[in-house]
C-alpha cells in the first residue's frame, strides 16, 4: 500500500533519486577543466567527448533514460509522461521495438536502449571577489528586494518569488546577490523563456561582471559547451542539466512556455542542486503562484514601483459595441477613430495590439491614410526583428502587433491601445504586460493605455485591479518614507 501511495506521489512529483549523489571528486589538476565541462549535465552516448573516455569511465554514472511505471512512462531528460508523446521504433535487425521520447527529440533521441550518462561532483568554481563593477544605484524599492535576493543566493536551500512590476529594473536587483554568490564560488544559471532576452542580457552581465566567465545558451547559440560559472539560457536549455547550479534565477516564471509545460519545472528542479537558492521573477503571477503567495508557501518580495518612481499607467476601458462588425466590414470602429482624432498630434509613438494576424494586417491597412509611417508584425513575420528595430528608432510612428510584443520589448515613449481586449488571447497576465509597455522612460513616465472592447471580461477587470493594487502598495511605501 505504501508503495502504491509513493508511486502516486511520484506521478505528480517526480522522484529524482536516480541522479547520483554529489561526491567530492578525486580529479587531478589536469582533469579540472574537464570536470567543469562535464559536471552537472546529461549526455547521450554519442555526445560524450571521445578523447575523455577514460575520465568518463572513471567518473560517470549510466542510467536508463526512460522510467517504466504502472501508470506509464517518464522521460528522465524532459519529464514527459504523456502517452502520446512516446512512440515505438524498430531497434536493431531482430525486429525488436524500442520506446523513445518524442517530446525532447530535438535535443537528440532518448530511448529505452540509449542510457543517459551523468557526472555530479561538487566541483569548486572560482571564488571571484568583488565581481560586480556596476556603479549604478538601486532605488529603495529595488534595494529592499535586492537584499532578500542576496540572502537566498548566499544561504541556499530556499526559494523566493520577486513580484516586480514591468519596468521595475529587475536585472539590477539581482546584481548584489550574484556578487555574493560568485564570491562564494557558486555556479549560477539565469533562465528565461525567450532567446531575445538571453541575447540582450549577455552584454549587460558581461559589463557588470567582467571577471566572471559567462556563456549564453539558446537553440542555435554559437556556444554549446556550457563550462562557464554563469550560464544565461533559454528555459529549454535546462533539459541538459542535472544538479548543476547553486543559484538559479527563473525569469518570467509565469510566461509561456514555462507555465504550460511540465518539462520546464521538472528540468528546473533537476538542474538546481538540492541545496540551491532559487529566485523566481515575475510581473504577473499566475493563479497557481498567487495561491502559493497567499498561503505563504512561497516567500515573496514585492517591487511595486518602477525604477523611475512613477506609478503604472492604469488602463481605461472604451466599449464599442460594433467593434467586430466594423472590422469585418473593413471599417475602423467609430470610438477608435474618435480617440485617435482627440489624441491629435503627440510626440509619443503608438503601439496597437490586436488578437490575430489577419486583424494586424487589416488595421495596418485601415490606418494607412491616417498615419504615413505604420507597419504590422506577428510571430512568423520574417521581418519582425527589423520592423521592431525601426519602430524603436522612430522610423515608424505606429506599430500594429499581435501578442508577441506583450513582453520584454521596451520602447521609451508610447501610447498603448488594444483593439478587442476581450478576446481570449488577452488573458489577465497578457493585459498587465501590455499595459506595462507604456510609460517606461523617466522622461515620459505617463503613457496612455486604452482597452477598446466589446464587453468587459474578468481578465480585463483583473488586470486593472492588479495594476491598481501594485500602485497602492507603492504609494504606501512612498508615503511611509516621507
Amino acid at each position, binding site marked *: 500500500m505504501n508503495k502504491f501511495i509513493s508511486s502516486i506521489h511520484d506521478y505528480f512529483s517526480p522522484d529524482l533519486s536516480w541522479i547520483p549523489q554529489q561526491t567530492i571528486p578525486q580529479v587531478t589538476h589536469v582533469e579540472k577543466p574537464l570536470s567543469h565541462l562535464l559536471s552537472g549535465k546529461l549526455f547521450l552516448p554519442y555526445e560524450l567527448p571521445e578523447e575523455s573516455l577514460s575520465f568518463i569511465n572513471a567518473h560517470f554514472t549510466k542510467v536508463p533514460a526512460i522510467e517504466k511505471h504502472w501508470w506509464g512512462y517518464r522521460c528522465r531528460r524532459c519529464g514527459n509522461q504523456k502517452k*502520446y*508523446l512516446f*512512440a*515505438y*521504433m*524498430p*531497434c536493431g535487425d531482430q525486429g525488436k521495438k524500442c520506446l*523513445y521520447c*518524442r517530446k525532447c*527529440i*530535438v535535443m*537528440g*533521441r532518448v530511448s529505452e536502449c540509449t542510457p543517459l550518462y551523468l557526472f555530479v561532483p561538487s566541483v569548486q568554481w572560482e571564488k571571484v571577489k568583488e565581481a560586480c563593477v556596476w556603479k549604478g544605484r538601486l532605488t529603495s524599492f529595488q534595494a529592499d528586494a535586492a537584499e532578500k535576493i542576496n540572502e537566498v543566493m548566499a544561504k541556499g536551500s530556499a526559494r523566493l518569488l520577486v513580484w516586480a512590476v514591468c519596468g521595475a529594473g529587475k536585472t539590477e536587483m539581482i546584481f548584489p546577490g550574484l556578487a555574493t554568490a560568485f564570491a562564494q564560488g557558486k555556479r549560477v544559471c539565469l533562465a528565461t523563456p525567450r532567446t531575445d532576452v538571453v541575447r540582450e542580457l549577455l552584454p549587460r552581465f558581461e559589463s557588470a561582471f567582467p571577471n566572471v566567465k559567462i556563456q549564453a545558451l539558446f537553440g542555435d547559440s554559437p556556444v554549446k559547451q556550457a563550462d562557464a560559472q554563469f550560464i544565461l539560457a533559454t528555459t529549454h536549455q535546462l533539459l541538459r542539466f542535472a544538479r548543476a547550479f547553486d543559484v538559479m534565477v527563473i525569469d518570467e516564471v509565469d510566461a509561456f512556455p514555462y507555465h504550460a509545460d511540465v518539462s520546464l519545472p521538472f528540468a528546473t528542479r533537476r538542474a538546481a542542486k538540492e541545496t540551491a537558492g532559487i529566485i523566481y521573477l515575475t510581473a504577473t503571477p499566475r493563479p497557481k503562484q498567487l495561491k502559493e503567495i497567499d498561503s505563504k508557501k512561497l516567500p515573496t518580495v514585492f517591487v511595486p514601483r518602477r525604477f523611475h518612481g512613477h506609478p503604472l499607467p492604469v488602463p481605461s476601458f472604451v466599449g464599442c459595441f460594433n467593434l467586430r462588425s466594423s472590422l469585418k466590414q473593413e471599417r475602423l470602429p467609430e470610438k477608435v477613430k474618435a480617440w485617435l482624432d482627440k489624441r491629435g498630434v503627440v510626440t509619443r509613438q503608438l503601439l496597437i495590439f490586436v488578437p490575430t494576424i489577419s486583424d494586424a494586417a487589416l488595421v495596418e491597412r485601415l490606418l494607412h491614410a491616417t498615419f504615413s509611417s505604420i507597419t504590422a508584425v506577428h510571430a512568423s513575420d520574417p521581418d519582425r526583428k527589423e520592423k521592431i528595430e525601426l519602430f524603436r528608432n522612430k522610423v515608424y510612428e505606429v506599430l500594429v502587433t499581435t501578442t508577441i510584443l506583450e513582453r520584454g520589448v521596451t520602447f521609451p515613449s508610447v501610447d498603448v491601445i488594444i483593439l478587442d481586449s476581450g478576446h481570449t488571447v488577452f488573458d489577465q497576465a497578457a493585459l498587465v504586460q501590455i499595459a506595462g509597455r507604456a510609460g517606461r522612460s523617466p522622461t515620459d513616465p505617463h503613457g496612455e493605455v486604452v482597452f477598446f472592447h466589446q464587453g468587459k471580461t474578468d481578465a480585463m477587470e483583473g488586470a486593472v485591479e492588479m495594476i491598481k493594487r501594485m500602485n497602492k502598495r507603492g504609494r504606501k511605501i512612498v508615503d511611509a518614507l516621507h
Partner: protein
Amino acid sequence: MHCINCHEVFMQQTFWSNLFLPDKRNPVCDDCRNKLIFLTEPVCPKCCRPMDKPDLCLDCQSWGGNSDILNKNISIFSYNQAIKDIINRWKYRGDYLLGKVFQYELARVFNQHYKNLEAVAIPIPLSKERMLERGFNQAESLAGFLDIPMVHALTRIHSEKQSKKSRTERVTAQNPFRLTRSVISPVILVDDIYTTGTTIRHAASLLKEAGVKEVYALTLIRS
C-alpha cells in the same frame, strides 16, 4: 486524438471505411495538413515536376525520353518550409512516428497511379553508418505504408555524402548501389525526395540490367 505533428488535440474524420480501422485514419490535423503543398497539374508526365504545360521537362528529355530507364516518378508534395520541418524532425532528429504524417497520402496516391501494376516496393537503402546513426530508413518506412510486398533488393556501397559535388559529377558518379537479389515483377522504387532523379535512376539501371521490365518511382517530395 492528438495530431502527431503539432500534438494539438483535433477531431479525426471517421468514415465507414475506417470506422473499425483506426490505423487508416489520418493522424494529422487539418492545420498541419493545410501547410503542405500538394503538387498539382500541369506537371512533367515523367517526373512530376511542376510545369506550365504537361510536357516532358528538359531534365527528362536529357534522360532519354522514351528510352529513359525509369518509367515514371510520382511525387506528392512540393518542397516548402512546413514539409522541410517535418522531414527534419522525422529523418534527421529521428522521430520515427512522424512518418505516419505521410501514410494516408502515400496510400491514396499509390492507389490512384500504381494500384494495378502488381509491383513490389523497393526502398532506396541507407548506408550502414547512416542506418546506425538514425536507427531507421525513412524510405523503408514509406514503402511499409503501401499494401504491396516490400523487397530489400538493394544495398548502398557508397555513402550518401554527395551534396558538395556538382550536379554533373553526381550524374556521372559511380552507381552507389548493388543489387543483392533478383526481382521479376515490376518495381516501385520508394524514397522521400526526388531532386535530380539521379539516385532513383542509379537504382533503376541495376534493376533493368537484371531484367526487370518496368521500374517506377514513388517519392514524397518533388523538389
